[in-house]
């Protein structure tokens, strides 16, 4: 591994196999499953410096560093995790995990169902954020981590971090949830439904069993990604990046690419449809829709967070209209009502929801400051 360069260097993912059945929120269960993980830094003697990074919709266990076979593509949060970075791998043992149902090596719809010998496809059970956390707890057990120094994520990843504090309050010291929400709004669910409809109405989808037909519902995936991408950017960011910039000087009076924003969306859609699994897209958007820890308590988020014992860093971006600051403030208010320790940073960044993946210096400074304090707590 490189050191001191700010990158964890070349990393090798590992497959962790779990053979005991995992009961799911739906009532179904999975007999056995694998999780892909990556780990960076060193676990200390007391096992008190472990940080779990949870991914959002389309990311994976590959959080930082590069893979030997693909050295030009760093992990999705490489600007956040590494030596000397906000989540400093010189001080913390950092674990990235690919969730159950995803398509980057963990057991999911693409995997072979041992019962049938064929890919699960449409028969893969619907999983929830709570199920993911239950699977992650087993991973923690296997790694010998009784209590995470922090569980951290952005967006859907932040929901997992939040859920840890409710499901396993004794096993998480700090929760870092960036650009997240306590549940989706009707508008959020509506965007997910448009994406799912695009996938499910693609003739190549075959009810989710497209593997058997050797097809991929690429058109649906492309549209799903395009609509998603629009919601990740702020209006002002799009205006600045593309404005009404055109490919040709004048209108061509056709429906091919005229505007740069069209080119960008098509490019993003095409790229995504090459590597992402359509069933996983359905599954993860559904997990987003379902997340609502206050649901069983009549919508009372204060009561839902009452079991939490962790300390919290909640972050939001002013131009994020997918999970705007008001959604993060709902979490903060409920935590204050419970008398929990919480810091809330509202960063005035122009990049919309995507800002949580970018390296705005104010954002990274506050995360680094938070982890500095965690490191100090650990060393005490």
């Amino acid at each position: 591994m490189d050191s001191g360069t700010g990158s964890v260097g070349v990393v090798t993912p590992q497959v962790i196999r779990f053979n005991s059945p995992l009961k799911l929120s739906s009532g179904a269960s999975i007999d056995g499953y694998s999780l892909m993980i990556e780990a960076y830094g060193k676990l200390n003697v007391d096992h008190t410096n472990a940080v779990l990074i949870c991914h959002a919709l389309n990311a994976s266990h590959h959080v930082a560093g590069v893979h030997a076979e693909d050295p030009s593509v760093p992990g999705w949060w490489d600007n956040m995790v590494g030596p000397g970075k906000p989540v400093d791998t010189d001080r913390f043992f950092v674990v990235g995990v690919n969730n159950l149902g995803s398509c980057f090596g963990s057991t999911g719809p693409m995997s072979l169902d041992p019962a049938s010998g064929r890919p699960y496809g449409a028969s893969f059970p619907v999983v929830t954020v709570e199920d993911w956390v239950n699977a992650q707890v087993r991973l923690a057990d296997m790694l010998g981590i009784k209590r995470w120094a922090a569980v951290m994520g952005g967006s859907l990843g932040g929901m997992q971090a939040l859920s840890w504090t409710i499901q396993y309050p004794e096993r998480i010291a700090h929760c870092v949830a960036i650009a997240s929400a306590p549940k989706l709004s009707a508008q959020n669910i509506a965007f997910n439904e448009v994406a799912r409809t695009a996938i499910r109405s693609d003739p190549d989808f075959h009810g989710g069993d497209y593997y058997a037909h050797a097809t991929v519902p690429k058109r649906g995936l492309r549209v799903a990604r395009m609509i998603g991408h629009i919601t990740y950017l702020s209006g002002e960011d799009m205006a600045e990046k593309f404005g009404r910039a055109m490919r040709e000087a004048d209108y061509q009076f056709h429906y091919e690419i005229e505007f740069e924003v069209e080119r960008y969306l098509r490019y993003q859609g095409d790229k995504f449809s090459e590597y992402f699994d359509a069933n996983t897209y359905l599954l993860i958007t559904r997990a987003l829709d379902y997340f609502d820890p206050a649901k069983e308590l009549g919508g009372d988020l204060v009561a839902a967070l009452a079991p939490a014992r962790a300390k919290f860093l909640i972050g939001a971006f002013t131009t994020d209209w997918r999970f705007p600051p008001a959604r993060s403030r709902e979490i903060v208010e409920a935590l204050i009502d419970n008398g929990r320790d919480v810091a809330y940073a509202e960063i005035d960044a122009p990049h919309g929801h995507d800002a949580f993946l970018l390296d705005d210096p104010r954002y990274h400074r506050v995360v680094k400051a938070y982890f500095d304090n965690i490191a100090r707590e650990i060393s005490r």
Partner: protein
Amino acid sequence: MSTARPLRIDLQQIADWVRPEGRVLDLGCGDGTLLAYLREFKRCHGYGVEINDDQVAECVRSGINVIQSNLDAGLRMFADAMFDTVVLSQTLQAVHNAESILREMARVARQGVVSFPNFGHWKHAASLLAGRMPVTRDIPFQWYDTPNIHLCTLKDFEDLVAKVGLNITGRALFADGQPIDVLPALRATLAVYRFETR
């Protein structure tokens, strides 16, 4: 964390008025110096509200519960009577609606403590008589470039407190870091008031 350096004199007065092990809200908490002091020396549990990015990062580094917000939105996040003491140090003069801030303070806590620069200091009066807005060590801003939009005198403040229906339960006045007893309205540069809801 270490808070070895002495507190600013108004913060020390405020700290002295805070009950040990109390719940404290510090509005415009800066880098969290007061809250860190109260946590360490009086075992208080507190939250701070601060808008400035640099100051918020400093609070976070010190493990202070800081909420990044302007005061109006920030105060709405706190429930009625949540705190024993709410603090507004050297910030009143910079808020848009001082009266509504005072009312909100009275809503969230039984006891409030406010410090502010005394605009009634004789040097300010002298400066005005000489035809200039005052620029002093305690109010070091030119009139056209200042965060201070609601400067007041001791009497002005006491009138507002009465209008809002609060009882003043303590007053401490300072100049050059020393308590002032004689002719305080003219000689104090800094005022610290404590009040309670009736």
